[in-house]
């Protein structure tokens, strides 16, 4: 049975393993034909930085791993505008195509889902 699942990514990529675990969850669920969308808020937006080079600290690239999302038909990626502004991030600096939404629109997005998880 297909569920609509929203993953909220709210942690930066390399300080903890949460971001990676969230992505693992996303790919596993997609393999089971679940309808996944991703919402980046807070420090989770740093997962999207195009210029990441974590080889420098001997870690695998979060953004490179996310590039396979379209192959899993995961195309609904959202980022919160106020949090981008707060972190001084321009949309040109992002390595993925995301839809920009406002904080006030998030509760509507949550409401439209069957399951919601945060990482």
């Amino acid at each position: 049975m297909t569920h609509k699942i929203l993953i909220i990514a709210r942690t930066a990529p390399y300080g903890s393993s949460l971001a990676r675990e969230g992505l693992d969850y996303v790919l596993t669920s997609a393999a089971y034909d679940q309808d996944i969308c991703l919402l980046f808020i807070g420090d989770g937006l740093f997962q999207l930085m195009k210029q990441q080079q974590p080889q420098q600290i001997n870690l695998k690239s979060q953004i490179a791993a996310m590039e396979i999302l379209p192959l899993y038909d995961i195309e609904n990626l959202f980022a919160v505008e106020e949090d981008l502004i707060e972190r001084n991030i321009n949309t040109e600096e992002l390595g993925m195509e995301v839809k920009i939404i406002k904080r006030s629109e998030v509760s509507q997005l949550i409401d439209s889902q069957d399951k919601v998880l945060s990482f």
Partner: protein
Amino acid sequence: MTLHLIQRSPFSNSALQDCLNIIDSQDSILLMEDGVYGLQHKLLQQTQLTTYALQEDITARGLYTKECIKKIDYVEFVSLCSQHKHVISWY
């Protein structure tokens, strides 16, 4: 309608702030584990949201609740979860 479980202290983690940034006025908050340190934080003194806190976690940490916070036990926690469409953990 969503129940938000806050599980980290707002003094050292952005869980509560991140949640408040996107929360709907119809949603509820439950403070649990180190999230109950939120009782001491000004973020929650400003909010009009329905707020619960787990009695066991408050007592364990020697904290007091303000009147506007509803204290609940684990049985009430379970029924609260079943009354909401979504339950989101913030940690």
